């Protein structure tokens, strides 16, 4: 059973994440993002960025790592064998670039139960090492109940 009392909880215990050129290149290859701005630091600098730019959904790497502090904790009551990803959204203040050291705050925004399915919505705020916002990642998981 998902613990419905966790709405409003905030999790900030995940250590900072360092965005690397290697991880950006791996992720870009996996999703088929071919822009040189993901792969070539000179091209990224020529386009006005400090280093190679992450693909648009790269922030999920950082968000899922941070969300696990909540969703993978047995106290959350979320049984991962019963979870389906329902929806996801990203809002970027600026793109992530190699060299960024970012921290996360995971907010439990909503937990709603209907027809045996519990929808758990988290919002992960990603900020740079100066505290400036970089991206917001909102993710909703659908957790099937025992009878569903």
């Amino acid at each position, binding site marked *: 059973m998902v613990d419905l009392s966790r709405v409003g909880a905030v999790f900030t215990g995940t250590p900072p994440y360092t965005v690397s050129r290697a991880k950006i290149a791996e992720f870009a290859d996996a*999703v088929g993002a071919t822009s040189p701005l993901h792969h070539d630091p000179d091209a990224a600098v020529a386009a006005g960025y400090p280093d190679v730019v992450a693909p648009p959904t790269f922030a999920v790497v950082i968000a899922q790592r941070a969300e696990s502090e909540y969703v993978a904790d047995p106290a959350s009551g979320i049984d991962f064998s019963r979870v389906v990803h329902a929806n996801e959204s990203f809002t970027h203040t600026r793109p992530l670039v190699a060299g960024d050291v970012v921290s996360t705050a995971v907010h439990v925004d909503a937990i709603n139960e209907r027809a045996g399915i519990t929808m758990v919505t988290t919002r992960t705020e990603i900020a740079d090492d100066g505290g400036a916002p970089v991206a917001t990642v909102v993710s909703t998981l659908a957790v099937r109940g025992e009878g569903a």
Partner: protein
Amino acid sequence: MSLSAQTEVGTELFSTTVAVDRARLVRYAGASGDFNPIHWNERFATEVGLPGVIAHGMLTMGIAGAALTDWLGDPGRLVSYGCRFTRPVVVPDPGEVEVAVRGVVGAVDAEAGTARVDLTVSVDGATVLGKAQAHVRLA
């Protein structure tokens, strides 16, 4: 073609297909850190009631987002991007599935300097992402 304040709503920006096989699922698992066995282990996937190994929803979303930002040229032009995961993408072995991605202008806000791009993402003619929309800066 560029996406500017003059671009008409309904304009198709791009249409492309991307092949997804089991090797790509393993590659995405490693790149993303999402090692859920439903995305690489047939036995596990069928035991939990799935028709077979399925692609990460985030891989499909990532492929569609990359198709858009590759078309834009500058990935920094993407302001926001969201979708629902409406249908699992079963990835055969041996073989592959073709993920088709089409981007159409849904709205243009000249004042804000942004446009909404509606993405249609389908496999064998059936859409697999719901309400896949991105907001991007105009050129």
